[in-house]
C-alpha cells in the first residue's frame, strides 16, 4: 500500500485540556477526511440495473466520466471541514450560488483515503466560489490520466455516497449561507438573484 498523507489538524487548534480521546478523534477525523465532488447525472452513479448485466458492481459507466471532466488534467474537489465550519451544506451552497440558476444539485462525498490508496497527486489551490472559507478548502487532483480518473470514479462510486438536493433545498441552503454571512447575494448572477429574492 503506497504511503498516504493525511491532513492533521494544526496543533494550535487543539483545546487546552485535550484528552487522549480528543487526540484520537482528531486523528480519526484526519484519517477519515471527507471530500465532495459536484455531479450532474446521479443516475449514472447508481448500482448496475437489471438490464445492465455488462456493468460490474465495482466499475463505472463510461458516461459517468462526464461528471469528472478535467481541465489541464486536473479535477476539482472540496474538503468538508466541520471544525472550521465548512460543512457539506455550506460547500454545496457555495457551488450552487455561483451558477446561472438555482437547480438541483447532485454530488458525491467520499473518504480522502481513496485518493491516497490510488496514489493520486493533489494540490491545494483556492476555489472560485463566492465563499472564501469554502475556497480555502478546495483541492485539485492533478497529473490525472484516463486510467487514474476511471479508477477514481469507480472507487468513489462504490465507496462514496451519491446524493441529490432538489432545487428548493438548494435554495434553502443558499439562503442559510446568506443569513450566516458566508455568501454575499450581490455577487449572484441574475437567475440566482431573482430566485433568492
Amino acid at each position, binding site marked *: 500500500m503506497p504511503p498516504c498523507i493525511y491532513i492533521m489538524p494544526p496543533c494550535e487548534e487543539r483545546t487546552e485540556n485535550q484528552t487522549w480521546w480528543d487526540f484520537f478523534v482528531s486523528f480519526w477525523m484526519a484519517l477519515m477526511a471527507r471530500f465532495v465532488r459536484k455531479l450532474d447525472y446521479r443516475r449514472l452513479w*447508481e448500482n448496475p440495473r*437489471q438490464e445492465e448485466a455488462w456493468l460490474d458492481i465495482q466499475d463505472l459507466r463510461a458516461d459517468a466520466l462526464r461528471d469528472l471532466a478535467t481541465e489541464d488534467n486536473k479535477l476539482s474537489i472540496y474538503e468538508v471541514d466541520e471544525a472550521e465550519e465548512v460543512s457539506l451544506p455550506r460547500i454545496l451552497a457555495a457551488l450552487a450560488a455561483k451558477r446561472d440558476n438555482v437547480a438541483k444539485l447532485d454530488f458525491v462525498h467520499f473518504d480522502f483515503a481513496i485518493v491516497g490508496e490510488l496514489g493520486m497527486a493533489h494540490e491545494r489551490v483556492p476555489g472560485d466560489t463566492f465563499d472564501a472559507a469554502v475556497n480555502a478548502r478546495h483541492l485539485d487532483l492533478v497529473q490525472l490520466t484516463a486510467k487514474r480518473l476511471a479508477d477514481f470514479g469507480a472507487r468513489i462510486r462504490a465507496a462514496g455516497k451519491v446524493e441529490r438536493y432538489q432545487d428548493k433545498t438548494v435554495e434553502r441552503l443558499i439562503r442559510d449561507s446568506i443569513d450566516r454571512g458566508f455568501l454575499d447575494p450581490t455577487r449572484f448572477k441574475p437567475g440566482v438573484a431573482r430566485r433568492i429574492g
Partner: protein
Amino acid sequence: MSYITTRSDTRYEPRRRYLVRELLDPLLSGEHPPDEWMRADSTSPLIGKMVPTLVDDDPTPRYGYEPARVPLSFEWTHANSTSPLLRQISSTLVGIDLIPWYQLEPQQEPVIATTSLLISELAAPDVQRRILSRTLDALLESAKEERFEDGMNSNLSVGLRVLLRKYSTDFIRVLEDRLKGPKISSRILTEVLHTLGDIEDATTKGWRLATLVRFLASPSSIVRDAAATGLAYLDDKTAIPYLREAIARESSVAFREDLRAIVEQLSA
C-alpha cells in the same frame, strides 16, 4: 452562416440590387449607417418584405454577384440600435428579439444567430413552421458539441426559451413533432426537459406539463430522471399523481428516493 444575395426573379431584381448594393453591403462591411437610417421614422415596409428574400445559406456567386456574408456580430451590433430601421433589419435577418435581461458574452452568441433562417412576421404559416423546424434542428445539432451542467445556461436552453417565448403555440407544434421523431440523445433530451420545466410561461405550461409526464415513462432512466426534475422545476402540484405512479414503477431505490423528494417538494 447567412449570406445576402440577389435572385433570379427579374421583376424585383432592380429593387433587390439597390437594397443590397446601396444599403446592406456598406452596412455589412462595417460602414457607418447613413444618417437617414438613424431617424426615428426610418422603418420601411419594403425592407421588411425584401430582406427575407435576400438571405440564404448559399455562399456561391450568383447572377454575377458575390453574396455578402452576414457576420455573426451583425445582429448584436444593430439589434439595440437607435435606428428603428437597423433594428428591423437585424431582427428580420435573425428572427428573434434579444432578451434584454440575458447578458451573453460575445463568444456565446446563440446558435440561432448562426443559422441562415428567417422567421419573418410576413411569412406564410407553413413557411414559418418549416423555418422553426429547421431552427430547432440547428439548435439540436449544435447541442451535440455543448457541455451541459445543472444550473448553467446553454445555447440550447436559451434558444428554446427564446423560441417558446416568441413563437409559443407555433413552436410547441414543431417541438412536439421533433420529440416524437428521430431519437435525440438522452444527454440532449435531459437539457430539453430541464428547460421545459424551468421556463416561466403560463401559455405553454399545460403542454410542458403533459410532455414531461409523458417522458416519465421513458425506457431510459436518464430521461425519466430528467422528466421528473423538469416537473420539480415546473412546480405544479398536478404532477404529483403521475410522480406517484412513476415511483410505483421504478425499480431503483435511489431513484424512488429522488421521486419521493420531488413529491414532498411539490406537496409543501
